[in-house]
């Protein structure tokens, strides 16, 4: 296999695996966060605005790791520097 094929295969496979694994962890974590938030909302409904706001901030922090994986996948597929280098070399 020449280097173009290796780069293409590696980029495609890793892009798929990155998004696949990268969304599992944050999804589990967000599920636990929302479950705990719902429990505390049921116990203390008058603090609901604080709980909701803190929940959203926490969800955003957890979500950002999934976004990092997504951005890496997008870079591998659409803005792959090795691909562009090899294509420019040919």
């Amino acid at each position, binding site marked *: 296999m020449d280097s173009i094929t290796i780069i293409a295969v590696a980029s495609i496979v890793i892009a798929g695996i990155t998004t696949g694994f990268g969304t599992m962890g944050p999804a589990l974590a967000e599920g636990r966060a929302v479950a705990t938030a719902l429990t505390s909302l049921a116990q203390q409904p008058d603090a609901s605005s604080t709980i909701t706001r803190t929940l959203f901030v926490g969800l955003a922090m957890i979500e950002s790791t999934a976004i990092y994986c997504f951005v890496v996948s997008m870079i591998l597929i*659409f803005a792959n520097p090795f691909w562009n280098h090899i294509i420019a070399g040919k």
Partner: protein
Amino acid sequence: MRLSPDQLIFLRYGLLKLNATIVFTWGLMFVLVVGSILITRKLSTELKRSRWQNLLEMVVTGIEKQIEGVGLPHPEKYLGFLGTLFLFLATASVCTIIPGYEPPTGSLSTTVALALCVFIAVPFFGIADQGIGGYLKSYVEPTVIMLPFNIISEISRTLALAVRLFGNMMSGAMIIAILLTITPFVFPIVMTALGLLTGTVQAYIFSILAAVYIAAATRVRMPKAEAAAAP
């Protein structure tokens, strides 16, 4: 496949490029500024006021309450910065309804610029509130060993702000674009609605995180003796 509105160029003059990101940002600025000027031309303080004035008052009071909820005691000092952030990002995301429009926050340049504004604003408000000595002392807060970690955390949370907003807006636009080529009728509308929701939530999160960072930089630190003496 176009990754961001940066690549749609309208005019080019030597090194300067007028791309879609800049044009849409100018459009948003025009709408927000001219709309506000028109609404606040005749403000009334009686009970009877126009509905647009009512709308602006609801928005401003809501943002003030949120800033107070985060823990900043005088929200009017920070209302200009944080309110502008939230309004710009929310308008940028909601205007996706207009056909032919792409949110300028779907380009890394806009989000990095906004994150840099927050990066500069946090020490600005910190120094304005606590003085230079007090603010710089907060970097060695628990012990001196934490100094590099505090600096790294400042830089990384700015980067996280930029990438989070960019990732959410770009993924929304890209999913709609891809779906338009596959199932052009009903499904893209559902995804546009989802994009609207996530755009608004991300605008809220961006501003609330900026408020939390500013609150962390300006909160009054009790000296240890007082903290130990209070029962």
